[in-house]
């Protein structure tokens, strides 16, 4: 049997890597990819908890279905905004988009 803690730790690792990506990357698409990693970690958590702790009902799994759906929608909308940024500015680098500050 796989100990649940190990699944959670895998999730934590993916989450932290995703968070690193958000902080370190300057390309908007890459930031988005990192967020997807984090959401994936959340799903891992939800499914592990559901399977190990409360096998009945399948709330955690339903939750993760919703997470996947919203993540997909998020990707779509975010990419549209990034596309718009690229059209307006010819860049997808987020640190070049700093008209608004202070």
């Amino acid at each position, binding site marked *: 049997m796989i100990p649940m803690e190990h699944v959670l730790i895998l999730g934590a690792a993916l989450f932290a890597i995703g968070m690193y990506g958000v902080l*370190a990357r*300057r*390309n908007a698409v890459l930031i988005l*990819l990192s967020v997807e990693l984090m959401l994936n970690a959340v799903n891992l958590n939800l*499914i592990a908890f559901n399977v190990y702790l409360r096998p*009945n009902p399948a709330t955690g799994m339903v939750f993760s279905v919703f997470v996947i759906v*919203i993540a997909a929608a*998020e990707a779509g909308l975010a990419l549209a905004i*990034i*596309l718009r940024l690229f059209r307006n500015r010819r860049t997808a680098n987020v640190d070049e988009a700093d008209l608004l500050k202070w």
Partner: protein
Amino acid sequence: MQIHSTEQVVFYLLAVVAVAAALGVVFAQDIIHSALFLVVTLILTAGVYVLLSAEFLSLVQVLVYGGGVSILVMFAVMITRVRDARGPLDGAQKPIAIVAGLAIVTVLVLMISRTEWQQAIPAVNRPDESPVRVQRVITQTDKGQLMSDTDAIGHDLFTTFAVPFEVASLVLLVALVGAIYLARGEEDEVT
């Protein structure tokens, strides 16, 4: 660490490769590589789901995430020709980000290892042996049938979570409208 079964061996393999692929996502210096690494991570995670007896979710993961989202990203990358833009993909904050990432993973691992998860299991279905046994998700329906996880998810999704399901469709609709509006051509624009 003692290895008890093939299941475990497969899990650790998947885990190690998934983490490596995730690192690839955030460290790769080519945006296409990053996207491909993400696909790898997501598919490997789907494998973990199978190990956890969540077959339906692994399917969704592969189709929606690994397929749909990644292709969307690819499209975006192609259309915007981000690859043509020169310059590094990492920002100035990289060193701090490494520290922050390590700090977060430390916090989370400490939290996970210091928590007695057993106590979260309701006394009624707490299994006798420890560590906890993976068991197939079984849901008792009104009519007393036993179902697989696919059935269980479908059942809950359309009974308990019917309203969130509807709302999620609204979210998708808004995202769709927004994405089309924002990404569309500029022929009709004012200013």
